[in-house]
Protein backbone atom coordinates (compact mmCIF):
# COMPACT_ATOMS: atom_id res chain seq x y z
CA UNK A 1 0.00 0.00 0.00
CA UNK A 2 2.25 2.78 1.20
CA UNK A 3 6.00 2.85 1.19
CA UNK A 4 7.10 1.82 4.69
CA UNK A 5 9.82 4.40 4.76
CA UNK A 6 7.54 7.35 4.18
CA UNK A 7 4.93 5.94 6.51
CA UNK A 8 7.57 5.81 9.23
CA UNK A 9 8.47 9.41 8.57
CA UNK A 10 4.81 10.30 8.77
CA UNK A 11 4.54 8.53 12.07
CA UNK A 12 7.44 10.49 13.45
CA UNK A 13 5.92 13.71 12.26
CA UNK A 14 2.61 12.87 13.89
CA UNK A 15 4.24 11.80 17.13
CA UNK A 16 6.05 15.09 17.36
CA UNK A 17 2.87 16.97 16.50
CA UNK A 18 0.95 15.10 19.17
CA UNK A 19 3.67 15.76 21.71
CA UNK A 20 3.51 19.49 20.96
CA UNK A 21 -0.23 19.40 21.31
CA UNK A 22 0.07 17.60 24.62
CA UNK A 23 2.31 20.36 25.95
CA UNK A 24 -0.43 22.82 25.14
CA UNK A 25 -2.94 20.65 26.90
CA UNK A 26 -0.89 20.55 30.09
CA UNK A 27 -0.47 24.30 29.95
CA UNK A 28 -4.23 24.65 29.48
CA UNK A 29 -4.80 22.45 32.47
CA UNK A 30 -2.48 24.54 34.61
CA UNK A 31 -4.39 27.67 33.67
CA UNK A 32 -7.69 26.03 34.43
CA UNK A 33 -6.49 25.07 37.87
CA UNK A 34 -5.23 28.61 38.38
CA UNK A 35 -8.58 30.05 37.35
CA UNK A 36 -10.34 27.70 39.71
CA UNK A 37 -8.14 28.80 42.59
CA UNK A 38 -8.76 32.46 41.79
CA UNK A 39 -12.51 31.87 41.64
CA UNK A 40 -12.62 30.03 44.96
CA UNK A 41 -10.28 32.60 46.50
CA UNK A 42 -12.56 35.45 45.42
CA UNK A 43 -15.60 33.70 46.80
CA UNK A 44 -13.99 33.08 50.16
CA UNK A 45 -12.45 36.53 50.43
CA UNK A 46 -14.70 39.26 51.69
CA UNK A 47 -15.24 41.06 48.39
CA UNK A 48 -18.43 42.70 47.16
CA UNK A 49 -20.66 40.28 45.24
CA UNK A 50 -21.13 42.98 42.61
CA UNK A 51 -17.47 42.46 41.82
CA UNK A 52 -17.08 38.76 42.52
CA UNK A 53 -20.01 37.38 40.57
CA UNK A 54 -19.15 38.79 37.13
CA UNK A 55 -15.51 37.84 37.58
CA UNK A 56 -16.17 34.22 38.51
CA UNK A 57 -18.69 33.92 35.68
CA UNK A 58 -16.11 35.19 33.20
CA UNK A 59 -13.50 32.83 34.63
CA UNK A 60 -15.95 29.94 34.21
CA UNK A 61 -16.69 30.94 30.63
CA UNK A 62 -12.99 31.09 29.78
CA UNK A 63 -12.39 27.71 31.41
CA UNK A 64 -15.18 26.23 29.36
CA UNK A 65 -13.71 27.67 26.17
CA UNK A 66 -10.40 26.04 27.12
CA UNK A 67 -12.14 22.73 27.55
CA UNK A 68 -13.97 23.06 24.24
CA UNK A 69 -11.11 24.36 22.14
CA UNK A 70 -8.16 22.44 23.59
CA UNK A 71 -9.39 19.38 25.46
CA UNK A 72 -12.17 18.72 23.00
CA UNK A 73 -10.10 19.89 20.00
CA UNK A 74 -12.61 22.37 18.63
CA UNK A 75 -9.62 24.42 17.47
CA UNK A 76 -8.68 21.67 15.01
CA UNK A 77 -9.93 21.38 11.48
CA UNK A 78 -13.08 19.43 10.70
CA UNK A 79 -14.93 21.03 13.60
CA UNK A 80 -16.98 23.63 11.76
CA UNK A 81 -20.26 21.81 12.26
CA UNK A 82 -19.58 21.03 15.90
CA UNK A 83 -18.85 24.73 16.45
CA UNK A 84 -22.03 25.77 14.68
CA UNK A 85 -24.14 23.44 16.79
CA UNK A 86 -22.40 24.17 20.08
CA UNK A 87 -22.80 27.90 19.55
CA UNK A 88 -26.44 27.45 18.54
CA UNK A 89 -26.88 25.45 21.73
CA UNK A 90 -25.21 28.19 23.74
CA UNK A 91 -27.54 30.73 22.11
CA UNK A 92 -30.63 28.74 23.06
CA UNK A 93 -29.16 28.11 26.50
CA UNK A 94 -28.49 31.81 27.00
CA UNK A 95 -32.07 32.75 26.12
CA UNK A 96 -33.43 30.06 28.42
CA UNK A 97 -31.39 31.16 31.40
CA UNK A 98 -32.04 34.83 30.72
CA UNK A 99 -35.79 34.21 30.68
CA UNK A 100 -35.84 32.03 33.76
CA UNK A 101 -33.83 34.56 35.76
CA UNK A 102 -35.66 37.70 34.65
CA UNK A 103 -39.28 37.09 33.78
CA UNK A 104 -40.30 34.41 36.23
CA UNK A 105 -41.06 36.80 39.04
CA UNK A 106 -41.61 40.29 37.96
Amino acid at each position, binding site marked *: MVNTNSSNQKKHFYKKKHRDQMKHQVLTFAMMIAF*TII*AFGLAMADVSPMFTVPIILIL*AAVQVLFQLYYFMHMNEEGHQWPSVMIYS*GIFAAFL*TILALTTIVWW
Partner: protein
Amino acid sequence: MADDMLKSGNLPENPERATLEGRNKFLGFWFFLGGETVLFASLFGTYLALRNSTVDGPSSQELFGLGLVFLMTVILLTSSLTSVYAMYHMKNNDFKKMQLWLGITVVLGLAFLGLEIYEFVHYVHDYEFGYTTSAFSTAFYTLVGFHGAHVAFGLAWIISLMVRNAKRGLNLYNAPKFYVASLYWHFIDVVWVFIFTVVYLMGVVL
Protein backbone atom coordinates in the same frame (compact mmCIF):
# COMPACT_ATOMS: atom_id res chain seq x y z
CA MET B 1 -12.91 -3.72 3.99
CA ALA B 2 -14.86 -4.96 6.93
CA ASP B 3 -11.93 -6.92 8.24
CA ASP B 4 -9.72 -3.84 8.06
CA MET B 5 -11.93 -2.15 10.55
CA LEU B 6 -11.26 -4.78 13.21
CA LYS B 7 -7.51 -4.96 12.60
CA SER B 8 -5.67 -3.34 15.45
CA GLY B 9 -2.61 -1.19 15.10
CA ASN B 10 -1.25 0.97 12.34
CA LEU B 11 -4.07 3.51 12.41
CA PRO B 12 -4.21 6.75 10.41
CA GLU B 13 -3.79 10.24 11.84
CA ASN B 14 -7.32 10.73 13.18
CA PRO B 15 -8.59 7.17 13.68
CA GLU B 16 -11.88 8.41 15.10
CA ARG B 17 -12.71 10.09 11.81
CA ALA B 18 -11.08 7.71 9.37
CA THR B 19 -14.28 5.87 8.43
CA LEU B 20 -17.69 7.18 7.44
CA GLU B 21 -19.18 5.50 10.52
CA GLY B 22 -16.59 7.25 12.62
CA ARG B 23 -17.31 10.64 11.07
CA ASN B 24 -21.04 10.10 11.60
CA LYS B 25 -20.52 9.19 15.24
CA PHE B 26 -18.21 12.10 15.76
CA LEU B 27 -20.65 14.66 14.36
CA GLY B 28 -23.74 13.06 15.84
CA PHE B 29 -22.22 13.10 19.26
CA TRP B 30 -21.12 16.69 19.04
CA PHE B 31 -24.65 17.64 18.07
CA PHE B 32 -25.98 15.65 20.99
CA LEU B 33 -23.73 17.74 23.21
CA GLY B 34 -25.26 20.86 21.65
CA GLY B 35 -28.65 19.56 22.79
CA GLU B 36 -27.26 18.72 26.22
CA THR B 37 -26.21 22.35 26.52
CA VAL B 38 -29.87 23.37 26.34
CA LEU B 39 -30.83 20.58 28.72
CA PHE B 40 -28.45 21.80 31.38
CA ALA B 41 -29.35 25.42 30.67
CA SER B 42 -32.98 24.60 31.48
CA LEU B 43 -31.87 23.02 34.74
CA PHE B 44 -29.59 25.95 35.57
CA GLY B 45 -32.38 28.40 34.78
CA THR B 46 -34.77 26.50 37.03
CA TYR B 47 -32.20 26.44 39.81
CA LEU B 48 -31.51 30.16 39.49
CA ALA B 49 -35.22 30.91 39.62
CA LEU B 50 -35.66 28.86 42.78
CA ARG B 51 -32.35 29.41 44.59
CA ASN B 52 -33.90 31.69 47.16
CA SER B 53 -37.11 29.70 47.66
CA THR B 54 -35.83 28.02 50.80
CA VAL B 55 -39.16 28.21 52.68
CA ASP B 56 -38.18 26.91 56.15
CA GLY B 57 -35.20 24.87 55.00
CA PRO B 58 -31.56 25.87 55.09
CA SER B 59 -30.20 28.34 52.52
CA SER B 60 -27.18 27.96 50.30
CA GLN B 61 -25.01 30.07 52.63
CA GLU B 62 -25.79 27.79 55.56
CA LEU B 63 -25.07 24.65 53.60
CA PHE B 64 -22.16 24.94 51.26
CA GLY B 65 -18.60 24.36 52.37
CA LEU B 66 -16.13 25.33 49.70
CA GLY B 67 -13.30 23.01 50.78
CA LEU B 68 -15.02 19.86 49.62
CA VAL B 69 -16.23 21.49 46.42
CA PHE B 70 -12.71 22.66 45.64
CA LEU B 71 -11.39 19.14 46.09
CA MET B 72 -14.12 17.75 43.82
CA THR B 73 -13.38 20.39 41.21
CA VAL B 74 -9.67 19.61 41.14
CA ILE B 75 -10.37 15.90 40.88
CA LEU B 76 -12.75 16.32 37.99
CA LEU B 77 -10.50 18.79 36.17
CA THR B 78 -7.60 16.38 36.54
CA SER B 79 -9.69 13.53 35.19
CA SER B 80 -10.35 15.69 32.16
CA LEU B 81 -6.61 16.01 31.62
CA THR B 82 -6.05 12.28 32.06
CA SER B 83 -8.64 11.51 29.43
CA VAL B 84 -6.82 13.93 27.12
CA TYR B 85 -3.72 11.80 27.78
CA ALA B 86 -5.67 8.72 26.86
CA MET B 87 -6.65 10.25 23.52
CA TYR B 88 -3.04 11.34 23.02
CA HIS B 89 -1.96 7.74 23.28
CA MET B 90 -4.81 6.62 21.07
CA LYS B 91 -3.53 8.89 18.33
CA ASN B 92 -0.06 7.47 18.86
CA ASN B 93 -1.49 4.00 18.53
CA ASP B 94 -0.47 2.97 22.02
CA PHE B 95 -3.40 0.93 23.27
CA LYS B 96 -1.92 -0.08 26.62
CA LYS B 97 -1.09 3.43 27.68
CA MET B 98 -4.49 4.55 26.53
CA GLN B 99 -6.15 1.94 28.74
CA LEU B 100 -3.93 3.00 31.63
CA TRP B 101 -4.89 6.64 31.38
CA LEU B 102 -8.53 5.78 30.94
CA GLY B 103 -8.20 3.69 34.09
CA ILE B 104 -6.86 6.68 35.98
CA THR B 105 -9.74 8.75 34.64
CA VAL B 106 -12.20 6.20 35.95
CA VAL B 107 -10.58 6.17 39.38
CA LEU B 108 -10.75 9.96 39.57
CA GLY B 109 -14.35 9.88 38.39
CA LEU B 110 -15.24 7.37 41.08
CA ALA B 111 -13.56 9.55 43.68
CA PHE B 112 -15.60 12.52 42.52
CA LEU B 113 -18.80 10.56 42.64
CA GLY B 114 -17.96 9.25 46.12
CA LEU B 115 -17.38 12.78 47.38
CA GLU B 116 -20.65 13.95 45.86
CA ILE B 117 -22.57 11.16 47.55
CA TYR B 118 -20.82 12.00 50.80
CA GLU B 119 -21.82 15.63 50.34
CA PHE B 120 -25.47 14.76 49.79
CA VAL B 121 -25.57 12.41 52.76
CA HIS B 122 -23.98 15.11 54.87
CA TYR B 123 -26.64 17.65 53.86
CA VAL B 124 -29.47 15.24 54.52
CA HIS B 125 -28.19 14.10 57.91
CA ASP B 126 -26.62 17.17 59.38
CA TYR B 127 -28.88 19.86 57.93
CA GLU B 128 -32.13 17.95 57.32
CA PHE B 129 -31.86 19.21 53.79
CA GLY B 130 -33.75 16.54 51.85
CA TYR B 131 -35.10 16.43 48.34
CA THR B 132 -38.55 17.54 49.49
CA THR B 133 -37.47 20.20 51.99
CA SER B 134 -38.06 23.22 49.77
CA ALA B 135 -38.17 24.29 46.16
CA PHE B 136 -34.52 25.25 46.54
CA SER B 137 -33.53 21.80 47.78
CA THR B 138 -35.43 20.11 44.94
CA ALA B 139 -33.78 22.33 42.36
CA PHE B 140 -30.34 21.86 43.91
CA TYR B 141 -30.49 18.08 44.10
CA THR B 142 -31.97 17.85 40.62
CA LEU B 143 -29.32 20.00 38.96
CA VAL B 144 -26.33 18.56 40.79
CA GLY B 145 -27.88 15.10 40.69
CA PHE B 146 -28.36 15.28 36.93
CA HIS B 147 -24.67 16.06 36.63
CA GLY B 148 -23.87 13.23 39.02
CA ALA B 149 -25.96 10.85 36.96
CA HIS B 150 -24.04 11.95 33.88
CA VAL B 151 -20.78 11.17 35.69
CA ALA B 152 -22.07 7.74 36.70
CA PHE B 153 -23.22 7.00 33.17
CA GLY B 154 -19.89 8.20 31.77
CA LEU B 155 -18.04 5.90 34.14
CA ALA B 156 -20.17 2.91 33.17
CA TRP B 157 -19.60 3.74 29.53
CA ILE B 158 -15.82 4.08 29.77
CA ILE B 159 -15.49 0.96 31.91
CA SER B 160 -17.54 -1.16 29.53
CA LEU B 161 -15.51 0.16 26.58
CA MET B 162 -12.28 -0.74 28.38
CA VAL B 163 -13.46 -4.21 29.30
CA ARG B 164 -14.96 -4.91 25.93
CA ASN B 165 -11.87 -3.92 23.99
CA ALA B 166 -9.23 -5.19 26.42
CA LYS B 167 -8.47 -8.16 24.21
CA ARG B 168 -9.30 -6.60 20.85
CA GLY B 169 -6.96 -3.66 20.97
CA LEU B 170 -7.48 -0.43 19.14
CA ASN B 171 -8.99 -0.46 15.66
CA LEU B 172 -10.97 1.71 13.31
CA TYR B 173 -14.18 0.23 14.63
CA ASN B 174 -13.72 1.16 18.26
CA ALA B 175 -11.50 4.25 18.01
CA PRO B 176 -14.53 6.51 17.41
CA LYS B 177 -16.21 4.98 20.44
CA PHE B 178 -13.28 5.80 22.69
CA TYR B 179 -13.05 9.27 21.24
CA VAL B 180 -16.72 10.02 21.72
CA ALA B 181 -16.64 8.74 25.30
CA SER B 182 -13.79 11.11 26.04
CA LEU B 183 -15.75 13.99 24.49
CA TYR B 184 -18.61 13.10 26.83
CA TRP B 185 -16.26 13.14 29.77
CA HIS B 186 -15.00 16.60 28.89
CA PHE B 187 -18.53 17.84 28.55
CA ILE B 188 -19.27 16.61 32.06
CA ASP B 189 -16.39 18.76 33.15
CA VAL B 190 -17.76 21.75 31.25
CA VAL B 191 -21.03 21.42 33.13
CA TRP B 192 -19.25 21.10 36.45
CA VAL B 193 -17.35 24.34 35.86
CA PHE B 194 -20.69 26.12 35.77
CA ILE B 195 -22.06 24.14 38.68
CA PHE B 196 -19.23 25.05 41.00
CA THR B 197 -19.42 28.67 39.85
CA VAL B 198 -23.17 29.22 39.73
CA VAL B 199 -24.34 26.87 42.46
CA TYR B 200 -21.56 26.81 45.01
CA LEU B 201 -19.54 30.00 44.62
CA MET B 202 -22.53 32.20 43.87
CA GLY B 203 -24.45 30.37 46.57
CA VAL B 204 -21.89 31.45 49.11
CA VAL B 205 -21.36 34.95 47.77
CA LEU B 206 -24.94 36.06 47.09
